[in-house]
């Protein structure tokens, strides 16, 4: 029974991807695709089991274990949410079929990784996920996205190679491909250090630990919002899953690598947060926030590598963190998409109703960047009626972004706190952007004649896809600091 569900879980997105490819049932496909992760969610409620699939690859073993279950559940929820969201977000996108294809393939890989119980099948799913995600990142074909895709691909290939070398050595040292009991066997081998080094670097690229994070702040803003959500919420977590599966955590103390992990982790944690503060694009802010959070994870890993006895505590913390970060970061990304007025208000209320529920938060207008520059604290989340939304999720952006030392915060603080502020006519100076209510009411973004500036936006910024327009290369972003125009990122 479990085996059948597992097979269904992997076959569903693959079959849907094939249908997209062959252009079959195009009418209902988007709706079907949104539900592709349902079998995965069901599987997450099953009892742990393993099944040997000897004909697949090199004696594969698939199954569910307590660690995999947490990852599977979170991953499935995120893909479901992103799938629903994408249905509305890309409803009028000319290339939505292509997006669906890569989306479903990436989903297959991501779900497969969580149930893979041996090295080779893990690598296979991991690779499928990594390569298919390229299609998501370059979806809009803008120069910046293509550039992000290029960086992503180069780093992915590098990561694949490190992992290939690492897994071959792992196999040589442990004489086994199954994850079961792998840490103990690896800990007993003489070349444990080299294997750990290769795996740390290989999965570190996926995890986005500095200095291997280069692809992350480029790719997250480049991808369409639902893809960014899963990229940040689920996909980069597979790097952590790789660590949990293959490193000798809790079995052996590796002081050298522990020091490296703690050092790199701390630097990442702080530096990424600092760089994130200079970003203008909210998705880039979130990306750096992810990098920063991954630094925290690396510190935890370092601690576990130093003190194997503490592993049970650390692993619990890490799993909790996985759930927290996945859900929170996905919610933030999806919120940015809503705030980006890609979907006009009517749309949010209409088709997007599902989106809001899917995200698990009541997000109407996430005035993330706006508020960030205005009240100096974080983000003002209000729903469609302008009512404040004091749910847990509304605190998360503050958590993620942290205190925002904006020089003008005092001046505009009251503005941003005004309940009905978002509904005021747009009388602020151009370039400041502002609340999205008027934008939202001004009709569907994509129907606005080209060249006509969006209300509240600077001339020339009337882009149907805000959030893409102001994307700059990181160097620019860092150089063009907020000290120059602290509020200019507002409508991005």
């Amino acid at each position: 029974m479990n085996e059948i569900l597992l097979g269904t879980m992997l076959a569903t997105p693959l079959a849907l991807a094939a249908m997209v490819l062959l252009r079959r049932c195009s009418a209902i496909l988007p709706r079907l695709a949104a539900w592709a992760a349902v079998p995965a969610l069901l599987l997450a409620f099953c009892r742990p089991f393993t099944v040997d699939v000897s004909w697949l690859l090199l004696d594969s073993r698939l199954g569910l274990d307590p660690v995999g279950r947490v990852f599977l559940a979170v991953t499935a929820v995120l893909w479901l949410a992103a799938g629903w969201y994408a249905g509305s977000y890309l409803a009028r996108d000319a290339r939505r079929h292509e997006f669906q294809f890569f989306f479903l393939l990436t989903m297959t890989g991501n779900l497969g990784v969580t149930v893979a119980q041996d090295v080779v099948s893990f690598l296979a799913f991991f690779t499928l996920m990594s390569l298919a995600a390229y299609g998501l990142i370059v979806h809009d074909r803008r120069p910046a996205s293509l550039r992000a895709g290029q960086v992503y691909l180069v780093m992915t290939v590098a990561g694949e190679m490190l992992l290939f070398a690492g897994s071959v050595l792992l196999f040589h040292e442990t004489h086994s491909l199954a994850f079961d009991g792998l840490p103990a066997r690896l800990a007993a081998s003489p070349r444990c250090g080299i294997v750990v080094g290769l795996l740390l670097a290989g999965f570190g690229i996926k995890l986005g630990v500095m200095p291997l994070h280069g692809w992350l702040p480029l790719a997250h803003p480049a991808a369409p919002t639902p893809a960014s959500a899963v990229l940040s919420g689920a996909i980069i977590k597979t790097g952590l899953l790789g660590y949990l599966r293959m490193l000798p955590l809790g079995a052996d103390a590796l002081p050298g690598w522990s020091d490296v992990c703690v050092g790199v982790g701390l630097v990442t944690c702080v530096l990424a947060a600092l760089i994130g503060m200079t970003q203008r694009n909210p998705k880039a802010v979130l990306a750096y926030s992810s990098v920063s959070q991954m630094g925290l994870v690396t510190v935890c890993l370092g601690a576990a590598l130093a003190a194997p006895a503490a592993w049970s505590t650390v692993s619990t913390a890490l799993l909790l963190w996985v759930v927290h970060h996945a859900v929170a970061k996905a919610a933030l990304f999806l919120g940015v998409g809503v705030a980006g007025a890609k979907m006009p208000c009517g749309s949010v209320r209409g088709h997007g109703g599902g989106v809001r529920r899917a995200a698990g938060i009541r997000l109407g207008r996430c005035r993330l960047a706006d508020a960030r520059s205005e009240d100096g604290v974080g983000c003002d989340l209000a729903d469609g009626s302008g009512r404040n939304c004091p749910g847990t999720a509304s605190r998360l952006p503050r958590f993620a972004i942290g205190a925002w030392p904006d020089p003008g915060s005092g001046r505009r603080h009251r503005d941003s706190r005004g309940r009905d502020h978002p509904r005021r006519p747009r009388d602020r100076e151009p370039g400041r952007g502002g609340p999205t209510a008027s934008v939202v009411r001004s009709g569907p973004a994509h129907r606005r004649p080209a060249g006509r500036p969006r209300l509240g936006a600077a001339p020339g910024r009337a882009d149907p896809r805000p959030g893409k327009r102001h994307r700059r290369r990181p160097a620019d972003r860092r150089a063009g600091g907020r000290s120059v125009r602290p509020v200019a990122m507002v409508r991005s």
Partner: protein
Amino acid sequence: MTYDQWLPLLVVASSLIPGIIIFFLGEQQKRLRTTLNLAGAVLKVVLVAVMLWGVARHREYEVRYGLVEGIDFALHADALSLLFVTLSAVLWLLTTVYAIAYLEDSPHRCRFFGFFSLCVSATTGLALAGNLLTFLIFYEMLTLTTYPLVVHRGTPESLRAGRLYLLFALSGGAVLLLAVVWLQSLVGPVEFAGTSLLVEADPGLHGRLRIIFALLIAGFGVKAALVPLHCWLPQAMVAPAPVSALLHAVAVVKAGAFGIIRVVNDVYGIESCAELGVTTPLAVAAATTILYGSVRAVYQDDLKRRLAFSTISQISYIVLGVAIPGPLAAIGGIVHLVHQGVMKITLFFAAGNLAETLGVKKISQLRGTGRRMPATMAAFTIAALGMIGIPPTAGFISKWYLAAGAAEVEQWWVIGVLVASSVLNAIYFLPLIYAAWFQSPPDAWPAERPRGRFETSLGLLVPPLITAVLTVLLGLLAGLPISALDWAKLIVFRGDRP
């Protein structure tokens, strides 16, 4: 003669006889020629399947004639020869289908298909050869029957390429003949019996045996395109696409690699090779070729030339596999014989489709080809990912076993070479995939010739799709008892698997 003796002969004859008949047909007797061709190809696949079934049940298939005193003509079916025969039979069938569609309305088709069949007969013959001398006979026959295919178009360029090919191949053949005669005079007739004759050879002979080994490798290395004997291969790209496909995947290049496997595994035996100290130089030569071919491939703009340099690199995976002592690497090398064939033939089929249908021959013209020819480019993409060694394709399985085998004998540098080669493969294949799928097509293709109601004619479309599916299945289902990997294990462990 019993049925078991007839079978190896029949396998060779199933392409030889149609080939000879085709020479006597008129250019216009298209239907008869096609029927003969396809019948021969299908018959060969069936016969090989029968033989596979028998050998898996430990039946002996052997036929032997005394040519002169002490020299036998022997055909013998063992596990290794069957692996190669199966590969060539299946891919020949697909290539025949492809070639029939490809050469529609072009001149000299009788000559082409005649030599095409002879070429495959030679390949089958050398795969089934039971001793070194029989191998040599078919090896020379292969050289002579492929020359007319290389120069088929008759342009000055192809004639030049043909001359270069003959120069290299015949010199290689001469060196080989010298080595074989010398070896026979030292140790007597060399049979591929699965046991090394040289294990208990007189230590005084070791010096001479080393020289003979070098000569044998040089002779086979010409066809296997080991650096610096590779120069003819990129030139030979002027041949029509089905010829290139067959040349690179099955016939010529593979014959060289297969010869090297025979020399290391069956003539000398891997233990004796290690004892003589010849494996490390061979491994270094293979590694050099792998890196050289990959680096050169990066700089080619002609699609088929890039694929040719890629072949130079990939064939040496096979040589590297047999040059590293230890079963895992040998499995990797031998299974790559099949995997490389399937992947490379897909790439050449796709390149041929692009050239025939759109006139796209250069990498700089590949933009947007994925939109115009999605099925062809999908096959190309899968095969290219396989070449890089992306799991779960066939290429990954080969690479995994090669690397694990290198780790087994603690030759860490080999892993470095494999990783470097994969990176280079990614560098010269990923931009192609990117251009094909993620860039917009140009306003007009260089020379578009629409064929049929699909993106191109079915005969051109189906073979690459089948081989692309095989590329994935060979990797994904590597654990199945009928996979190439399982057969390679059977060869290496000689039936008694752990």
